[in-house]
């Protein structure tokens, strides 16, 4: 079974530039998450999708971050404009259902904002 695919693996941009990350979840997984992991901290949820609908985006900085999940499969996360504090690993995860199952993570995209 193919895992969660993310691209790119690494990205370096200057502050105020924009960047986009892509995620392809495991086939059939209805739930998709984007997490931000700052060095030395645990993953922090940015947004949760159920199929193509948003379940929770309360921690997404909506003035600069946006995410979509077209057709309930692939998802993109965008940052525009980026700030220095956005430097982190962005993790995508998918889950078969919502309840009492594990989530599977991709390898993440390491973003460095200079």
């Amino acid at each position, binding site marked *: 079974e193919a895992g969660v695919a993310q691209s790119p693996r690494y990205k370096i941009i200057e502050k105020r530039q924009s960047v986009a990350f892509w995620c392809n979840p495991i086939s059939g997984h209805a739930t998709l998450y984007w997490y931000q992991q700052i060095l030395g901290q645990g993953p922090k949820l940015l947004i949760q999708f159920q199929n193509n609908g948003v379940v*929770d985006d309360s921690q997404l900085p909506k003035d600069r971050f946006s995410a979509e999940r077209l057709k309930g499969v692939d998802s993109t996360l965008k940052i525009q404009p980026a700030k220095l504090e956005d430097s982190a690993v962005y993790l995508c995860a998918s889950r078969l259902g919502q309840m009492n199952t594990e989530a599977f993570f991709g390898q993440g995209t390491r973003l460095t904002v200079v």
Partner: protein
Amino acid sequence: DQQVKQNSPSLSVQEGRISILNCDYTNSMFDYFLWYKKYPAEGPTFLISISSIKDKNEDGRFTVFLNKSAKHLSLHIVPSQPGDSAVYFCAASSPQAGNMLTFGGGTRLMVKP
């Protein structure tokens, strides 16, 4: 408001001995708990989970214990192996919060040969 806490940032254990990683939570509505392991430059990988209706779940060398009254869970690794060296995250979810996973800050485990 950190709902899931791992108070030990690091733990060092000798190979063959037991590793005990701890996790505390504050939200009594959490009903499902998971442990993930993370190697550098990789995403977290699922290790073991436990539902709130149980107090213990075992899978090979890994056992998770849940103490609901104390809002505490622990991961035991016996015997510890050098390949277990990684960062371990506990996570919790509740139906009331859309079953999103809330993570602790992680504990770095180092198993010495």
